[in-house]
C-alpha cells in the first residue's frame, strides 16, 4: 500500500512540477553571458579637426601638422579619416568640452584635438585623443616643443601617440628610410644612397653616383648606416655616420675577395656580412671598432643575407646547401643550422622581426616573386604579395609593416618601394622622388 501510495505521490509531483506555472524556470541565475567570436575588420573612423593656431605665426604650421597627422593614420590602413566637411562640431578652443554627441552622429570613434603655438621661433604642439563613444580621453594630453623646421617630426610624434593608444602597438611614423635612389636607363643605372622620412618627405642624398651602392642597413640606433659599395672597384662593406656623412670601409679585405650583404647585430657593436673568398661564400662577424673577423658558417655552398633575432641569440640566413635557396636558423655564435623554409620554390633575404615573432622573406616560385612572413620555426608561412619581382623586405620598428622593392617587367621596368601590412592588407607604393630600391627602415627616432 505504501509503495503504491508513494508511486502515486511521485507521479503527481512530477506532473505538477512540469505543469504548474507557479514555479519559475531556473535556467539563468547570473548575468546573461554570450560569446562573440565574429567581428569585423575595418578602418577605425577618426576625426582630426584642424589644429587651433594659438597665434598668427602658428597658422600654417597648425594646418600642416594636422594634414601630416591625418596622412600618417590614413596610411596605415587601420584608420579612416572623416572629412572635415562632414564635421558637425567645430573645435574652437583646445580646452573646450567635447561635444561627444556631434562626433557620434558622424560615427567618429576617435577624435584628435590639438593646438599649435609659436613662441620664440619654436613650436609648441599640444593634442588630446578622445574615445568618442566611451566619452572619455584616451591617455593624457601631451605637448611637444621643437624648432619650427621640425614640425613634421612633431606631427609624426602626435600620430605615433594616437596609433599607439588605439592599437596597443608602437608607432612607426617618426622614422626614416635609407634606400637606393636610381636614375637612368636600365642598362646604365646610376645608384645613390639616399635617406628620407618614412613617408617620402625630406629626401637627402648621402653618396654621389660615381660608385654603385647596394643594400644599405640602419644601425639599431639609427645613427649609422652600413652598405655595400663598389667604390674601390670590388664589392666592399662600408660604414657611414649619418650625422656627418663620413664613411669608411668596415675592414680591409684581400684583393679578389668580396664583402657584401651586411647587417648590424642587435647591440650595434658588430656587423655580420657575407664574404666571397675563392669561389665560396660564408658569413662572418666583425666588431664595428675593428679586430679579427669571426667565421660563422663554413660550407661549400653560398651562405648570405644574415639577420639576427632581436635578442641576439640566433641568426637567420639563406643558403643553397641543399641545392635550392632556402632559409636556415642557427645559434648566433655558430652551430648547426636548421632549415625552416619547407615550401616549394626558393627562399631568400630573411629578416627577423623586431618583435621576434616572425621572419620576413622573399620567395620565388613559378616565375613569380612574393614577400612573405613565417614563424621563426618556419610554420604559418603566409605570402603577402605577388608580382614580377618583389624582394628585400625590411621591418617597421613595430614589426607590423614591411617595406620592399617591387620592380616592373620589361625594358622600361623600374624599381619602386612598396609597403604592406603583415596581414597582407594595405599594399601601397611609398612616395620617392624617382626610382628607388633596397629600403631599410630605421628605428624610432624618439
Amino acid at each position, binding site marked *: 500500500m505504501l509503495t503504491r*501510495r508513494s508511486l502515486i*505521490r511521485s*507521479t*503527481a*509531483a512530477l506532473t*505538477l512540477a512540469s505543469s504548474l506555472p*507557479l514555479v*519559475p524556470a531556473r535556467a*539563468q*541565475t547570473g*548575468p*546573461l553571458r*554570450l*560569446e*562573440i*567570436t*565574429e*567581428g*569585423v*575588420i575595418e*578602418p*577605425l573612423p577618426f576625426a582630426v579637426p584642424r589644429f587651433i593656431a594659438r597665434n598668427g605665426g602658428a597658422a600654417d604650421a597648425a594646418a600642416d601638422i594636422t594634414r601630416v597627422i591625418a596622412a600618417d593614420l590614413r596610411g596605415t590602413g587601420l584608420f579612416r579619416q572623416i572629412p572635415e566637411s562632414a564635421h558637425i562640431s567645430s573645435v574652437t578652443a583646445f*580646452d573646450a*568640452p*567635447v561635444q*561627444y554627441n556631434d562626433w557620434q552622429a558622424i560615427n567618429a*570613434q576617435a577624435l584628435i584635438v590639438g593646438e599649435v603655438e609659436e613662441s620664440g621661433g*619654436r613650436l*609648441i604642439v*599640444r593634442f*588630446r585623443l578622445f*574615445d568618442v563613444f*566611451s566619452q572619455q580621453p*584616451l591617455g*593624457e594630453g*601631451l*605637448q611637444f*616643443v*621643437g624648432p619650427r*623646421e*621640425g614640425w*613634421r*617630426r612633431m606631427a609624426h610624434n602626435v600620430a605615433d601617440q594616437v596609433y599607439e593608444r588605439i592599437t*596597443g*602597438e608602437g608607432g612607426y611614423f617618426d622614422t626614416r628610410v635609407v634606400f637606393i635612389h636610381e*636614375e637612368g636607363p636600365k642598362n646604365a643605372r646610376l645608384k*645613390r644612397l639616399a*635617406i628620407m*622620412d618614412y613617408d617620402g618627405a*625630406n629626401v*637627402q642624398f*648621402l*653618396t*654621389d*653616383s660615381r660608385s654603385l651602392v647596394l643594400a644599405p642597413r640602419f644601425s639599431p640606433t639609427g645613427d649609422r648606416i652600413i652598405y655595400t659599395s663598389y667604390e674601390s672597384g670590388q664589392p666592399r662593406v662600408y660604414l657611414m655616420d*649619418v*650625422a656627418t*656623412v663620413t664613411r669608411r670601409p668596415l675592414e680591409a679585405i684581400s684583393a679578389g675577395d668580396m664583402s657584401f650583404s651586411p647587417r648590424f647585430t642587435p647591440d650595434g657593436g658588430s656587423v655580420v656580412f657575407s664574404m666571397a673568398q675563392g669561389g665560396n661564400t660564408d658569413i662572418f662577424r666583425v666588431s664595428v671598432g675593428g679586430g679579427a673577423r669571426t667565421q660563422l658558417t663554413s660550407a661549400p655552398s653560398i651562405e648570405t643575407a644574415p639577420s639576427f633575432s632581436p635578442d641576439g641569440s640566433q641568426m637567420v640566413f639563406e643558403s643553397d646547401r641543399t641545392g635550392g635557396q632556402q632559409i636556415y636558423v642557427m645559434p648566433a655564435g655558430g652551430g648547426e643550422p636548421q632549415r625552416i623554409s619547407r615550401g616549394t620554390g626558393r627562399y631568400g633575404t630573411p629578416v627577423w622581426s623586431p618583435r621576434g615573432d616572425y621572419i620576413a622573406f622573399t620567395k620565388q616560385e613559378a616565375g613569380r616573386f612574393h614577400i612573405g612572413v613565417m614563424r621563426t620555426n618556419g610554420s604559418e608561412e603566409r605570402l603577402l604579395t605577388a608580382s614580377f619581382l618583389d624582394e628585400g623586405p625590411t621591418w617597421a620598428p613595430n614589426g*607590423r609593416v614591411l617595406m620592399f622593392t617591387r620592380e616592373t617587367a620589361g625594358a622600361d621596368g623600374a624599381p619602386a618601394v612598396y609597403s604592406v601590412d603583415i596581414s597582407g592588407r594595405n599594399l601601397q607604393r611609398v612616395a620617392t622622388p624617382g626610382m628607388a630600391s633596397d629600403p631599410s627602415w630605421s628605428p624610432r627616432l*624618439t
Partner: protein
Amino acid sequence: MRRSLYASTALHAVALVWVAFGDAVLRDSPEPEFEVTGVTLLSTAEFEALTTAVEPTPVAVQTSPAPAPRPAPTPEPDPEPAPPPEPEPEPAPQPEPMPPGEVTDTIAPPAPLSGAPDLPPDTTPTPRAADRIAPVPTPAPEEDVAVAPEATPETADPQPAETPVEQEEVAAPEEATTEIVTEAETPSGGPLGPIASIRPPTRPARPEPVETAAPAPQPDPAPAPEPEPEPAPEPDPLAAAIASAVADAVTDPAPPAQPSGPPLTSAAREGFRVAVSACWNVGSLSNEAQRTTVVVGFDMSREGRPVDGTLRLVSYEGGSQSAAQQAFEAARRAILRCGANGYGLPAESYDHWRQVELVFNPEGMRLR
C-alpha cells in the same frame, strides 16, 4: 463774364506757380538732415539676458591650465643642403635628421560638459551678490525708518490696549546702496549656482534576496461541534498525493536571484550577439590584443541600451594587461556604438538581460 474768366485764370495760374516753386523760393531754411542710426532688435529673452548678471558657464571651467612651454634642450639643427638634382657626382649633403620635437609635459584633460559626472572642482570665482540700485531716487520716506537686519512689520492699527504696548518702530532691510562695490573690493560670497552638476544617484542596489516567510501558522479553528460519529472514509490516495505535492510546490521558496519573465529566446540571444558582432572591429588591434579574450560586463537599461559607466573588464586571458586593455576598449566601443539605439531585447524578459557579460574571443579573427 469774360472778365471774371480772366480773373479766374490768372488766379489759378498764380496758385499753380506758388505750388510749384513757392516752397523752393520762399523756404527760409533747409530741412534738417536725418541721422540714420542702426538699431538692433532684441527679443525678450535677449533683453533679459543683457540685463541680468553674467554667470560663469561650464565651458569656461578649466581644470588646470596647460603647462607653460619650457625651452627644449634640443640642439639646433644642422643646415641641410639642398639635394642636387643631377645624377652627376657631387658631394653628399648633410643628412642630419630634422630636429626632434620633445615631449615635455602632459596636459590636463578638458572639462567635461555640464552634467557629466566627475566634474573637477570649480575654480571660477563666484560672483558677489550685487547690491541693488534703484533706477530712480527713492522718495524720502514720510518718517525715518530704522535700519534693522530683520523686517519688523508695522503694527496694524494700534488699538488702545488695556495694557499699554510699547510701539515698535517700523524697520526694513536696506534696499539700496549709494555706491557700487565691485567683487574685487569685497570677498566673494557664496556661489550663485551649483559648482558642479549633481552626480546622478548610483544605481540602486539589487534588493537582497528576501527569504520567503514561512506561512504563518493558521490559528486553530474554533472547535467545531463534535460531529456525529460516523465511520471515517478511506482517504483517497490520489487526492492526498496531489495535496501533498501542491503543498510542497507552494511552500518551496523561490531562489533569491530568480529572474522574472520569460527567458530570452535563442533568436533574441542570437540577434543580440550578431548586433554586437557587427560593431566589434578588431582590425586596429595589435597582434597581441588579437590573441586576447576579454570578458566585458555591463548593465542594461530597460530600453535595451548599455548603461554608461557600467562597462568593466571582468577578466581576460591570452595576453598581457596592456593588450587586454586595448581589447577591452575595442569591445567597449562595439557595445556602446551598436547599443546606442538599443538592442531591441524583449522588455518582458528584462530580468534576464539586466546584467550582461560578453566574451569577446578573437581567436577566429586573427590575421584573417
